């Protein structure tokens, strides 16, 4: 029989048992649906994190106090505990380090973050304040709504000025342009020189803090009145993404002049991105793998139904053989039935999966999804393979049926 006719013949048989064919396909539909959904969610998270991290600039370097090790313990003993951790205890980074780094080869801007707690008299609370210098606006993605950022002169003169976030502006001044107004910190007047744009809080990535609640003050002003003199993070912007490697070397060499190796850690944006992507890649693969199990179960469902179908249609097979079907014709027909079911199931599952992945963010706004072409192709190929793999055995069983026995069966 010509292939096209075998195809039509298989289609007819499937259509003859509409409900059963659909129920059989359901396994594949659900399998492909979950593969697409879960990998889309995984991809979505990955994209979100990547874009958040990249929005800060791929040419960013961070210097943290202490030794942060990524990966397994190095050195002779595997039992060793890292001497100084990721934190402020034993922090030796100073603002002088920032000044030393400024203007070095391959570096376009250097800034830092100094965290402190101060009393906001107007609101009668204690709040986190951040000391920084004029270059922060160049290394991080801060946008001003009103006014300007801290200047070099204001930093050098220890002036009492502040750049405040959207939420801080709301609470202190009931929103609006507050440039030129003053508020009290620890009993002293501070003049607002800038108000930041409202920014959606990013829940992932290294800069996960809420910028809306920030109050930026000139770093020297803060350090002068505090006992703790160490900065918690130095941010370095390389001249270009290509210059990141050499800038990293320069930073390390400059830092070594005043610090031991274990007193600081230099991290690239790319390192963090890689680490995060690694974890999320494993997550996506794991989710896809779990979903693939349901696809396997769907395949077993197809085999089960095809075996029932072969037994039930024994007589039909006998008749087909009597009127001239060869073993190959029968094999092809039953195989096509299995493959058609898995492919139609796969396509329906794909449609449902893509629809679901598109709809999900509108139901759960915190979840972002991204359908990856690779997942779609892998899922469909997998569906096809499931059809062939689980279709071959019933089909060969049908083909091998003795026509005499087949015709005699009731």
């Amino acid at each position, binding site marked *: *029989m010509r292939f096209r006719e075998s195809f039509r013949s298989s289609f007819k048989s499937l259509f003859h048992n509409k409900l059963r064919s659909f129920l059989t396909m359901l396994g594949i539909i659900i399998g492909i649906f979950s593969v697409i959904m879960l990998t889309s969610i995984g991809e979505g998270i990955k994209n979100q994190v990547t874009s958040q991290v990249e929005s800060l600039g791929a040419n960013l370097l961070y210097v943290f106090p202490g030794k942060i090790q990524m990966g397994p313990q190095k050195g002779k003993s595997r039992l060793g505990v890292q001497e100084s951790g990721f934190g402020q205890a034993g922090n030796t980074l100073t603002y002088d380090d920032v000044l030393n780094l400024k203007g070095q080869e391959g570096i376009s801007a250097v800034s830092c973050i100094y965290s402190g707690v101060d009393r906001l008299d107007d609101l009668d609370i204690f709040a986190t304040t951040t000391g920084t210098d004029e270059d922060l606006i160049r290394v991080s993605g801060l946008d001003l709504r009103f006014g300007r950022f801290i200047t070099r002169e204001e930093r050098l003169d220890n002036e009492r000025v502040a750049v405040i976030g959207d939420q801080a502006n709301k609470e202190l001044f009931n929103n609006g342009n507050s440039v030129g107004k003053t508020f009290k910190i620890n009993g002293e007047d501070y003049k607002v020189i800038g108000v930041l744009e409202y920014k959606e809080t990013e829940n992932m990535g290294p800069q996960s803090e809420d910028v809306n609640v920030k109050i930026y003050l000139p770093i020297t002003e803060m350090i002068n009145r505090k006992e703790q003199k160490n900065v918690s993070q130095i941010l370095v912007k390389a001249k270009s993404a290509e210059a990141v490697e050499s800038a990293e070397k320069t930073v390390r060499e400059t830092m070594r002049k005043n610090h031991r190796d274990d007193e600081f850690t230099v991290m690239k944006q790319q390192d963090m991105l890689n680490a995060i992507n690694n974890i999320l890649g494993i997550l996506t693969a794991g989710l896809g793998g779990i979903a693939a199990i349901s696809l396997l179960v769907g395949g077993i469902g197809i085999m089960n139904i095809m075996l029932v179908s072969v037994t039930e249609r024994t007589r039909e097979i006998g008749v087909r053989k*009597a*009127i*001239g079907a*060869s073993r190959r014709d029968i094999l092809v027909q039953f195989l096509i039935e299995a493959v058609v079911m898995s492919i139609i199931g796969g396509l329906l599952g794909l449609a449902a999966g893509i629809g679901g992945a598109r709809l999900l963010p509108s139901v759960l706004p915190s979840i972002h999804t991204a359908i990856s072409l690779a997942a779609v192709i892998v899922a469909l190929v997998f569906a096809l393979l499931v059809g062939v793999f689980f279709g071959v055995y019933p089909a060969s069983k049908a083909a091998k049926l003795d026509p005499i026995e087949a015709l005699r069966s009731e």
Partner: protein
Amino acid sequence: MRIEIQGLHKSYQNGDQITEVLHNVNLRVGDGEFVAIIGPSGSGKSTLMNIIGCLDRPTRGVYYLEGQDTGKLGDRRLASIRNRHIGFVFQSFNLLPQYTALENVELAGLYGNESPKRVREVAKKALISLGLEDRMKYRPNQLSGGQKQRVAIARAIVNSPSIILADEPTGSLDSRTGRKVLDIFKKLNKEGRIVIVVTHDPGIAREASRIVDIKDGIVREVPNEVS
């Protein structure tokens, strides 16, 4: 078409037990013959017919079809012989329920690798020749017994085979429709086809040009009183 069977034995294995159904059968059938195979049930009539129809193979002995030793042919050649040269008609019609009358007839043509268009043409012609022109789109469960059997005969002749094999073709029909079906077989025989009918019905056997009687697996020619 010439059928020649020499020293044929057929046995079935059932667990440890081997049952021989046919013993040393010798049979020759030539063009234009109408053969009735009679005998009690379980005597091996259907087995012999299945072997003639290339659905089954002899355990021992040879079966030449048009001088060709069928024992040496593979599955695909045998399938092609069944398709082109042999038309089967069964007692229980054996039409596929999901197909219309026309599609059931077409199926035999499609297994012969003919183009679907040409198959449709010959299938329609075969149905019309059996008076079923207004039943083509009906499914088997919408047809009467006699109509079903005529569709089955149309299916058997759609590829213009030279041999028609019928296993109790009137067994499920009342005597009047059975008579009509028999007339169709006679007509097909007159057109030059070999017709071999397995039957219990002495009325049919009487119409045949030859009667072959099988008893306990042994074949015996019976002189036909009529001819």
